[in-house]
């Protein structure tokens, strides 16, 4: 090895915001599709939960329709917490979070990269859980409106969850701390998502029973994405 070749005369220009987001997403997806640690944990957990609920709630078809939304979102919320914890733990365990923070990019790009990866994992798990749930509970969950609600709810959950997971991962009690921090903050998302989903599943009136909750989800998604954008830098710095 020679000094002449190890250090070149390249000059570095900072990566753009979108390039940095794309790099973080690519890295997370490449690592996860190889190891499948996070994905398999979320998926197995989700399937177990809906199986347990299926046997625990031996309900008639009409009652099932009314509890489906709640069961579905409890499943997504707990599986999502597993995923969020694991996603940030991977960064912390080998010092990789420092590696990310040392990059000359806007730190909000790191947040958005992590949030998009977490959302992709959550949506994949949901895409597998929904048909299984439909089969077990004999309910058609493939309604465009319901899928929109699931997307908006997942975005809200992940936007707050990624920010709080970044905070919790810096503590020794991160596994316990994340749900304690997260669930009180995502209560508006969960309530809105359950109400809007329930509205679709029970054939409720769109204007009075569904739209208001979708609006709450939209506003929540916007507000918390903006808050995360503004505060992520402070959350991850000592």
């Amino acid at each position: 090895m020679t000094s002449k070749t190890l250090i070149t005369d390249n000059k570095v220009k900072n990566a753009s915001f979108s390039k940095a987001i794309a790099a973080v997403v690519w890295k997370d997806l490449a690592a996860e599709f190889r190891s499948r640690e996070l994905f398999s944990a979320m998926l197995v957990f989700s399937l177990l939960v809906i199986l347990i609920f299926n046997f625990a709630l031996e309900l008639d078809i009409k009652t099932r329709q009314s509890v489906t939304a709640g069961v579905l979102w409890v499943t997504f919320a707990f599986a999502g917490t597993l995923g969020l914890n694991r996603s940030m733990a991977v960064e912390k365990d080998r010092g990789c979070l420092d590696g990310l923070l040392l990059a000359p990019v806007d730190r909000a790009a790191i947040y958005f990269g992590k949030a998009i990866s977490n959302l992709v994992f959550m949506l994949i798990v949901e895409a597998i859980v929904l048909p299984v749930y439909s089969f077990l509970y004999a309910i058609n969950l493939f309604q465009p409106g319901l899928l929109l609600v699931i997307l908006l709810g997942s975005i809200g959950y992940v936007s707050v969850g990624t920010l709080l997971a970044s905070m919790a991962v810096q503590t020794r009690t991160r596994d316990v701390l994340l749900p304690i921090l997260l669930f009180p903050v995502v209560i508006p998302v969960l309530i809105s998502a359950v109400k809007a989903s329930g509205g679709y599943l029970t054939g409720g009136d769109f204007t009075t029973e569904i739209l208001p909750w979708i609006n709450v989800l939209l506003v929540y998604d916007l507000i918390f994405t903006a808050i995360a954008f503004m505060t992520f830098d402070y959350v991850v710095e000592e």
Partner: protein
Amino acid sequence: MITVKKLVKRFGMKTVLRGVDFEVQPGEFVALLGPNGAGKTTFLRILASLSRPSLGEVHVANYRLPHQAAAVRARLGVVSHLPLLYGDLTAEENLQFYARMYNVENSEARITEVLDLVGLESRRRDLVRTFSRGMQQRLAIGRAVIHDPEVMLFDEPYTGLDQDASSMLDEVLRSVAAKGRTVVMTSHDLARAEDLATRFDILSRGVIAASITHKQLGRNNLLTFYKNALAG
């Protein structure tokens, strides 16, 4: 290249750095020595923009921290005792990721060059989690130099390395110094520090207790200087 004035760092009620004054000229190789808990890692984390100073001024590569942190990071390479690498990515993928984050031009050629230089070209498609500690640290060095930094910070880089990997790191550090890069390295290994650095600063109880250049040290023993600095 690096100027630190009256730097104070507090964690809650605990004050780790108590008014550190520190200056490094371009091309200098400074070994920052001190006992465990002296604040060496905290100090380096502040220089790396990973931690904010509580009080005081910090300039790295003529940019002020924390306000111009992105400009500092673009000119900084950091190697710590942790590899900062993803075990589920290959060596090549890890470097690709960091090359994208640092927006390195001609990244494919640079990755090949760096892998070759750290002796891991034949393992470029192997997962990092299959690497030994020494190989991971070699790749960590490759990661740190991928964007050709002006300033390099090494935080206990020899921790857990075998003899071969340590020799390899010696060579990289010499290479960096020979190219006129500015280097700050924390270490407990006085013999290695004496062999590599051009200046030795002793950090004790949150302040720079003593400083001496290699030339001033002359034939004297660094260990004796170190012990006297801690005793004083």
